């Protein structure tokens, strides 16, 4: 079983939704409400959250 990788480059600062079968980002927006609305009812499409910028501190636990 190979882990599914997602390439988040270019989506920094945006909320994203990912196709669970491929790991590809299929929805992205700076407003989480927009992502939640667009992902609603879409099979295999999961909303993750906000993609951090590279220079943001790495969270330890919940941030």
């Amino acid at each position: 079983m190979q882990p599914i990788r997602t390439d988040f480059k270019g989506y920094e600062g945006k909320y994203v939704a990912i196709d669970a079968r491929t790991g590809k980002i299929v929805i992205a927006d700076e407003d989480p409400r927009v992502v939640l609305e667009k992902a609603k009812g879409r099979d295999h499409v999961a909303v993750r959250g906000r993609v951090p910028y590279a220079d943001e501190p790495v969270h330890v636990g919940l941030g």
Partner: protein
Amino acid sequence: MRLGDPVFRPFVYVSLACGEQSTTLLEGLVDTDADAVLASDLLSEQLGIDLADNEGETPHAVGGRTLMARYKTVSLRLHPRDGSLREYREWEAQVGFVQGWHSYSLVLLGSVGFLDCFTVTASRFAQAVAVEDRDAFDERFGAVLSP
């Protein structure tokens, strides 16, 4: 990134439901350090929940900030790794909805409401999370009696 390497988090696919309403599919972050299931209040909007009518409020210290969680009992659904919406295992739990939650996951799966319902194994080596029946722990390691 940490020291040039990607940071991997233990996610599982979940959704929340209340009555006829349900959220979209979500990547829920498994967190053994959290005592509860916490979620963005954006999800309570999707569920049509009025958080003014809550079951209790608790402040939580998160990332140097204090966030207020308003708790409400809802259904949680655990979905398979391909993110199928039609397949799920459902249970009820109190979820603390937090205003202004803008993190890398909109749901945090902690001890009460998630880790007390399943046996969860996370492997950084395999880059995978396995969720099994709660009794799997006892079958693997023997029954552990709480003091």
